[in-house]
């Protein structure tokens, strides 16, 4: 199984490490030819406007959109969630996404860095205790289309009830960063998703 991590900008190394911890040898992807060699993709945390800019410049936007349309499994955390949304609020007017998940995402929805926080989130499909989630200038999901399953919401505080984890088919997105906590359950869930997608082919 070949999983790529989009390596234009952001916490690529943490995702590579989390995938390695999930028994997958993952590789960075910066070029269309490298995309051809992977069965699935992780879009890391980072600055979504920078990723959009570089994806356009280096010819990755359309190839990734096409792979998504063809059923490639993708997981995005934080900026990665923004890159998977069909509609982005509070973004730049020229900002592009890979789309894929029928949802409206608000960028920097919880506020600026001083509002960044850690909090427990219960994720459906992931067994065990609540997930200790790290939110950094994070987005939230404001609206989901009919094909989208909500997997997790903020449980307490002023933003209680906000949607922060979703899945649509082979596409998974979280507003928080499991790659920063050493808890591999979300990555393992994604690897299992990739395995099932391959078996179905």
């Amino acid at each position: 199984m070949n999983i790529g991590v989009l390596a234009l900008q952001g916490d690529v190394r943490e995702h590579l490490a989390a995938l390695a911890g999930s028994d997958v040898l993952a590789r960075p992807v910066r070029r269309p030819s490298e995309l051809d060699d992977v069965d699935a993709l992780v879009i890391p945390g980072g600055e979504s406007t920078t990723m959009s800019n570089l994806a356009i410049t280096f010819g990755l936007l359309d190839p990734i959109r096409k792979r998504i349309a063809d059923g490639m499994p993708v997981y995005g955390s934080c900026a990665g969630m923004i890159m998977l949304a069909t509609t982005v609020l509070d973004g730049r007017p020229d900002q592009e996404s890979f789309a894929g998940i029928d949802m409206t995402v608000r960028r920097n929805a919880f506020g600026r860095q001083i509002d960044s926080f850690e909090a427990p989130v219960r994720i459906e499909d992931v067994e065990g205790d609540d997930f200790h989630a790290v939110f950094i200038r994070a987005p939230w999901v404001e609206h989901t289309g009919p094909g989208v399953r909500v997997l997790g919401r903020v449980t307490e505080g002023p933003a209680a009830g906000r949607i922060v984890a979703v899945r649509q088919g082979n596409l998974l997105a979280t507003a928080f960063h499991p790659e920063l906590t050493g808890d591999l359950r979300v990555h393992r869930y994604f690897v299992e998703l990739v395995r099932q997608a391959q078996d179905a082919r």
Partner: protein
Amino acid sequence: MSESRTSTGTARVKRGMAEMLKGGVIMDVVTPEQAKIAEDAGAVAVMALERVPADIRAQGGVSRMSDPDMIDGIIATVSIPVMAKARIGHFVEAQVLQSLGVDYIDESEVLTPADYANHIDKWAFTAPFVCGATNLGEALRRITEGAAMIRSKGEAGTGDVSNATTHMRTIRGEIRRLSSLPEDELFVAAKELQAPYDLVKEVAEAGKLPVVMFTAGGIATPADAAMMMQLGAEGVFVGSGIFKSGNPAQRAAAIVKAVTFHDDPDVIAKVSRGLGEAMVGINVDEIPQPHRLAERGW
């Protein structure tokens, strides 16, 4: 009553913010218009300040935190993170920057120091701090004080990359040396580095700092930025190099691309074409000792 399990301003949230900037370029800007150009070019963040280091150097005088109106103007203009500089040891400037909603505070040697003995107690803040360092001991002292990100200092406002190279090689070399030491020699290593033993041990075991390390000071071209990445920087600050050059928008975009493809000379060659005038530089050797900014910090 159940206790809230939500927390802000934790070390993980502060250090994590820097992780999200990795592989990116942070650009010095002095106006909202410049901030817009930086964001358009793909900067991951902007550093709001009153004068770029080259002008601070040229004009002299005491250099301080920027006017809050100017910082507000930049925050209102861009959607990417906004950083701003406080003087070394000036904890009230830092309090003001935090109250303005600045995303990262740079306790910076580029401004005139406010305290020649103490740096700011950065644990006391919700906003994260980045600090400069010329060597490993300095980096570890800043982390001990609560810095959540380190940048090698270089010599700001010169367009001369040689000090950035020296500082990056020094820090990386000292980390490699620590990793090679037997455990019973780490006590003396900590004494020599003037840093806490636990932190020294952590770095020796991990082979890296516990926080993200960017580079800064004198970077003026895409090739400069790419070289710093190949030397082990996790991202780049560019100060005077962009807005003191002939074509800031194009140069800014070129440096962003060169950082992402720092190991691909074909891309660096391509983005380096037709950029126009680079900033007029000053050789660090020609700057008299008291005017060297990198030596500020203790």
